[in-house]
């Protein structure tokens, strides 16, 4: 019993190093920041993302993110994208992904979560919930200034 726990711990060792990571910034242009736990941190190509991060782009900015279920999210200038919830079981492809676009423009290519279950992924805007049924789409939220 003890031995099998040890083996399990060893097997999981590699993936635990990435346990908190839900995705990674693969493309970044201009100003891109992440709001995490009340702090604003500069983001760049390679930055890993966590649940509850809010990714923001400046007037000159754009950003492309690959999530660990292979979903792709990319945002244009003056955008704020919150990664509200991401749970993904890479063995069963089950879980949940909720993101919200607070402002700006967003392009989405859904990944394994939406393919596995039509209820698994949503994108929210200030007024609307978009249910993602295995799909590519774009969303814009214009906020009055």
């Amino acid at each position, binding site marked *: 019993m003890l031995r099998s726990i040890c083996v399990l711990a060893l*097997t999981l060792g*590699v*993936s635990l*190093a*990435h346990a908190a990571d839900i995705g*990674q910034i*693969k*493309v*970044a*242009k201009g100003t891109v920041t992440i709001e995490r736990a009340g702090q604003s941190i500069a983001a760049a*190509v*390679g930055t890993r993302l966590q649940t509850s991060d809010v990714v923001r782009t400046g007037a000159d900015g*754009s*950003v*492309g*993110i*690959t999530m660990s279920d*292979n979903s*792709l999210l*990319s*945002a*244009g*200038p003056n*955008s704020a994208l919150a990664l509200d919830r991401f749970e993904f079981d*890479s063995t069963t492809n089950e879980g949940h992904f909720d993101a919200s676009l607070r402002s*700006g*423009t*967003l*392009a989405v*290519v859904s*990944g394994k979560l939406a393919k596995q279950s039509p209820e698994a992924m949503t994108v929210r*805007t*200030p*007024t*609307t*919930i*978009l*249910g*993602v*049924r*295995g*799909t*590519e*789409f*774009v*969303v*814009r*939220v*214009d*906020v*009055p200034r």
Partner: protein
Amino acid sequence: MCLARIFALPAALTLGVAGCASERVVLLPEQDGHPTAVVVKQGDREVLLDRPYAAAELTLADPWTYRATPADVESTFGTALAAQPTRAAHFVLYFVEGTDELTEESKKTLETVFADLEKRPVPDVLVVGHTDAVGTDQFNDALARKRADTVRAALIQRGIPGEDVVAIGRGKRELLVPTPDGVAEPRNRRVEIVVR
């Protein structure tokens, strides 16, 4: 900008819009041609977008639908679409029975994996090892892991940082070609690679 938007919309529809807030969603054609859809939900109201370029303007009064054009999409969403990361790529490498030695054919496939990796500025890679159904679970778990570790080492040797390559083994639990236990099947002796 605000005025332009108001004039662009029929007057009746703009009445329900607070200030110039506006939201829009457009369904795009799927690259692989599969049927797709987005369900647009506002409270109790629900609108289904299920054709390429089907679009909804999400006013507070009522979502209304129309057909967008590729030119509309490009002018509003061009920058967001240009920032889209390269899609994930999948590769399968096969092994000589009972070993972590790649077949001759798969040595060539491994070169195409390296070529794909060069196109990605910050690749991350998942390597999953599998075996056929010959032998015990314990033997196959170790062999599957060894195959994945061997491929991981080859990727690291070609310059991919170790922290970006995750190797796991699934033993004989996920046969690509279902067989009874104990059956030798070359297509099951494999490592599956996902490059992102």
